[in-house]
């Protein structure tokens, strides 16, 4: 059963990811990106990571995609066709890299399985994923959490400083 769900989500993710770059209308691209985000969130559910699921929906599907759409709508009117031109050189380089990847995998095979650390295996605790993340965040990972809060402070003030209208022109006498 789990494989069926994984197959569905993975298949749709691969399909919509291709559509994001293949579609010509940027709004359609953004929408297929939205579908992809939803299915990635679904993948997290199958992994029993409900916190990541919620974050994926809120941050990516909610916030980031809205910004994409804003940007697309502001820019589409004047978008010249030059963004739709692909040079043949890039095809050559891309093709070379694909051939290289195929050759390398053919020679060595994919052996990621043996090198992945066993200790890192996720262990869903009884009280649920969200609660244990909260526990960790405010105990073992308190320090990075506080640094992250400073980053948000800098981002907020930085945005205000760089965009505020009236520049302080008067010298502090």
């Amino acid at each position, binding site marked *: 059963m789990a494989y069926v769900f994984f197959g569905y989500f993975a298949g749709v993710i691969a399909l919509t990811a291709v559509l994001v770059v293949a579609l010509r209308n940027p709004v359609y691209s953004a929408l297929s990106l939205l579908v992809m985000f939803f299915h990635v969130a679904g993948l997290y559910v199958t992994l029993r990571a409900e916190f990541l699921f919620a974050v994926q929906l809120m941050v990516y599907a909610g916030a980031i995609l809205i910004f994409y759409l804003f940007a697309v709508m502001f820019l589409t009117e004047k978008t010249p066709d030059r963004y739709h031109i692909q040079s043949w050189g890039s095809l050559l380089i891309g093709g070379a890299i694909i051939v290289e990847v195929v050759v390398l995998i053919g020679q*060595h095979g*994919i*052996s*990621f399985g043996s*090198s*992945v*650390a*066993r*200790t*890192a295996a996720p262990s869903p605790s009884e009280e649920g994923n969200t609660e244990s993340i909260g526990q960790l965040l*405010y*105990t*073992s*990972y*308190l*320090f*990075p959490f506080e*640094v*992250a809060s*400073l*980053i948000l*402070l*800098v*981002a907020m*003030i*930085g945005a205000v*400083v*760089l965009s505020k209208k009236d*520049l*302080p*022109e*008067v*010298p*502090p*006498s």
Partner: protein
Amino acid sequence: MTAFSPSDLLLLLPELLVIAAACVVLVLDPVLPSHLKDGLAWLSLGTLAVCMGLISSQMGHPASAFGGMVAIDMYACFWKLLLCAVAGLTVLLSYSYLKEERLYFSEYYAFVLLSLCGMMVMVSATDLLAIYLGTELMSLSLYVLAGLKRTEPRSLEASAKYFVLGAFSSGILLYGISLLYGATGSTRLPAIADAVAGRSLDDPLLLFATILLAVGFAFKLAVVPFHMWTPDVYQGAPTSVTAFMAVASKAASFGAFLRVFAEGLSGLRTDWSMIFLLLCIATLVLGNVVALVQTNVKRMLAYSSIAHAGYALIGVVATGRMGASGDSAHGISSVLLYLALYTFMTFGAFAIVAMLRKGSLEGEEIEDFTGLAKRQPVAALLMLLFMVSLAGIPPTAGFIGKFYVFMAAVEAGMTWLAVLALVFAAVSAYYYLRLVLVMYMREPASITADSPRLVLSPTLSIVLACAVAGVVIFGIYPDPLIQLAAQATLPLK
């Protein structure tokens, strides 16, 4: 698990003080009457002085806080002391520079302090997650600082370019960190070192993780071929910010970079020293050769800072080559020494460029230095000293730094690398001394009211005095700094 105790906060007192000062500056800025706003610069400076005192008192008492997330060892204290000193010099330089440029943002000092806090986290964290967040804190503040000359398109371009490339490189760094976590099961450097011991880069996951980490850090260090952003950003940013970026952000990045690779990935040291050997040679060649054709002093100094990252990388490569024997400490301490000495000369050179004014503009073209020796002999003499030191000519600090880095290479059995670096140091002498030639040998066209001159102020005099003292004193009597750098090395497994 005991997560933390109040005594952990005491250990982090320097960082907390810096954050508190930044917040006070931010809050007081809008409410203070304009004639008191200068006080905010003095407040920042006072805080930094107190921090330096605190950090020196922490030296020799190694401790760790937040369950091994942060280490307060000699290595961290060395970098923190250096970074606080550079931030103090930046505040002093900015005090006069911001007035000349008519940039009246008091938030400026808050961003310098917050950026400093990020750097202090970078050099003391022993957890990849904290190192990454420290890097972000530093970079975000610098993106804003680079774009503060808002009326000038070049400054905004610098900020945007720095932001896009910085975000991109952070992504690569984070990708490397996540793969390393997948391969080792931990983000703590000691645990990673245990997990990596005995494995090699034949392991595809470790290979990808190491390469991505190396690329991510190479962006921050501005090492060829990941240096593209440096000249444009250094040229466009306000010069006081450029000085801060060229010195402090490079030192902090080296601090975090060395800790990750020497402490966390020491099991792979023969492999990563190969990667950095290639980067090092490319950096030495390209940085020095491209600097030859620059006509703008800020761009020339940008390429020179790229080249200097190459010299410091020699010490890193030597560390990797020397293996676990006691000698490898020489490699690390030579990098610490090099960056400490590089600080004085580069900061001094940028301070002069910042305060050489042409009317209301900055005199940042090499042409603007024409005949400076006739008009302001002292300024020309100071610039001469910094240039000679950057070129690495004895008896200046630059020579001592290069000498120890080259010695580390020789000890590691790479005499050819030292010889190559020496050849390119000779190349670099050409562009450094060209500026000296312009200052001393060429007659100024005509002395008019707005011919470029160094605008002196008490704060600038202090900055220049510190820089010159560093260049001359450590050039003649480097022992104390060498001792300090030798004590501050990391234990390698």
